[in-house]
């Protein structure tokens, strides 16, 4: 029996008449990278925001590390780190200031925050730019800082919402390595992306979501076998098979 670190049950969320998330349930095992795939507007970010206790679900339940996000939000928050899809950084502050600030916000003391900030900057290969202003960074560098901030406070679980969007293959590869490294150390990760090869490489299991609903969930290989020969079929084919070819908003 695998150790379920995160359990989401029947999540619903509407914004006026848009049903952004419409009955999504899944669980993520400790130490697993779980991929959440879906076209634009599928409800991935909305799901993550509910899991991260930023957004109150209309109905449904979330438990993280045994704590209900509804009844014990502070405890649940202390276990998670979030790398949001949109950069969440103070552009006018330096990289190190951003890391230290959010480190302190997650409960670290001054010394710990400084130490972790140094470690995470080195992890992202940005130790030389520690004092540089975020506003002066390239898109890829900002993305890496965005991820580094999520690691502050040694969370047990990460929510990574399209962490590699808009960056070059070099940066992307270095991010993959970081993530695999974290997984090897036992980190539980929820990962959303549009890049299928990324999901194939990293995720143990993936869920495909569209129109706020879960359509398929399994290991990449199992999903591929469902529609043909897993050696010839890519995850992209599976994705298109389930979500169709029409354009989304």
């Amino acid at each position, binding site marked *: 029996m695998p150790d379920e670190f995160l359990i989401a049950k029947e999540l619903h969320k509407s*914004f006026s008449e848009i049903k952004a998330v419409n009955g999504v349930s899944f669980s993520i095992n400790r130490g697993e990278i779980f991929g959440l795939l879906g076209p634009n507007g599928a409800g991935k970010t909305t799901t993550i*925001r509910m899991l*991260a*206790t*930023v*957004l*109150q679900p209309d109905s449904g339940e979330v438990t993280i590390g045994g704590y209900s996000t509804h009844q014990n939000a*502070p405890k649940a*928050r*202390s276990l*998670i780190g*979030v790398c*949001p899809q*949109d*950069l*969440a*950084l*103070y*552009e*006018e*502050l330096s990289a190190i*200031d951003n890391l230290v*600030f*959010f480190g*302190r*916000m*997650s*409960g670290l003391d001054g010394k710990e925050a400084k130490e972790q900030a140094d470690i995470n900057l080195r992890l992202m290969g940005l130790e030389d730019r520690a004092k540089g202003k975020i506003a002066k960074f390239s898109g890829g560098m900002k993305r890496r800082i965005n991820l580094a*901030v999520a690691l502050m*406070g040694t969370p047990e679980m990460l929510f990574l919402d399209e962490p590699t969007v808009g960056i070059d293959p070099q940066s992307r590869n270095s991010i993959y390595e970081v993530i695999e490294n974290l997984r090897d150390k036992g980190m539980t990760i929820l990962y959303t992306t549009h890049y299928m090869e990324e999901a194939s490489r990293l995720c143990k299991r993936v869920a495909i979501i569209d129109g706020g609903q879960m359509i398929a969930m399994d290991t990449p290989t199992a999903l591929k076998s469902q529609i043909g020969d897993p050696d010839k079929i890519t995850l992209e084919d599976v994705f298109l098979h389930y979500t169709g070819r029409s354009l989304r908003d």
Partner: protein
Amino acid sequence: MKNLTHIWFIALKDLKLFVTDKTAMFFFVAFPFLFILLFNTMMSGIGAEDERITLHVLTRDDSGTYSQMLLEAYETTEESKLDPDDHSPIIIWLKDIDYATAKQQVEDKTLSGFVAFPKGFSADIETFKNEILAGEKPLHFINLDSQLEVIVDPDNTDQQIALNGVANIIATQMNAMQATMKSTALLADDPTDAINTFFQQLNTGQWAKDLPSVNYQTTIVGDVEAGNPANYVIPGYLVMFTFFAALQGGAQIVQQRQNNTLERMLTSSVSKEAILGGTFLGIFLRGLLQITIFWTLGSLVFNIDLGIAPAAVIIISVLMVLMSSACALMLATLIKTERAADGIATLTALLLAPLGGCWWPLFITPKWMQFIAKITPHAWANNGFNKLMVFGADFSSVVPEMIALLCFAIGFGTIAVLRFRTSSIQ
């Protein structure tokens, strides 16, 4: 405890953002001083620094004696004998024109103003003297303060301030003299001699020279620095720009709501209360920084005078910052988008500034404007500063202004907290 450290670090971060933001620093710190420089020069006229102020006095007393004597003592007879280093005013006794003519001249703006001794002034003193000599304790002092009349062109602030100062001094001196006489009369075995000596001095105008009258006068007129418009120009801009900066800070919170940093804070272990408190403290600290710079530069560069109760000036400044920060927080919790917040912040700040007397002193505006101005917290702050720094008031006389500012702060703060509690981040 955790909340407190969070509050402190959020505030510190906001302060850092402010200090590293060169545009904001220019706009809220350097820019106001350009304004101040401009208005200060405009309001002081040309060469006001070296110019001695000329004041006019007259008496409506036909019977003569005392008020005539007094004026003779006060009058500047030889201008060349005035100490060039002190800026004591030239005092001219209007002998050739009567009260009505002088008043008409003020209305026609050919005369800037004058202090008039009332009709019956000398008779009053005579009565007073006789009462004392008769051994009756006078039950009342003749209150010259209310009887001396100051007629002045409302557009001429320098004159307004200086003439009021002169009237005050004369009144104070007369009161002091009465008190001395009264006590002498009570203490002496035979008061008659003592009293007669006093009135003899009064008749010859001797007392006015003996009493530290001239010095006294210089000190008081000097105290309120009638010639330094910076004493009301700087507080005005201080009020305008601390309020403006605070509201911009409020708009920044809205911006953070949009750029996800607020959301990121919420996913760490920060409580909503700590975010609210930290943001408030951040805006408050920025304001304190601003007023420190304002008062320091004001004193060093513009030679402003904080008056006899500098503590009151500081307290009003701090309350002004507190009120502005609360207002900013209210704005941030009421408005959804950054653009709207920016616009509303700018508009509110620019509208309330002239209404509340930041661009020109309220004491030169018509009564109805002064009345309407009271709806703005700015007017209370400005009135407080004017009382202290222009009219030389003491601490207790600005307590109402302090209370009003505190009430505004509490009102805005309450709305902000209530709104923040019910709002969730969408």
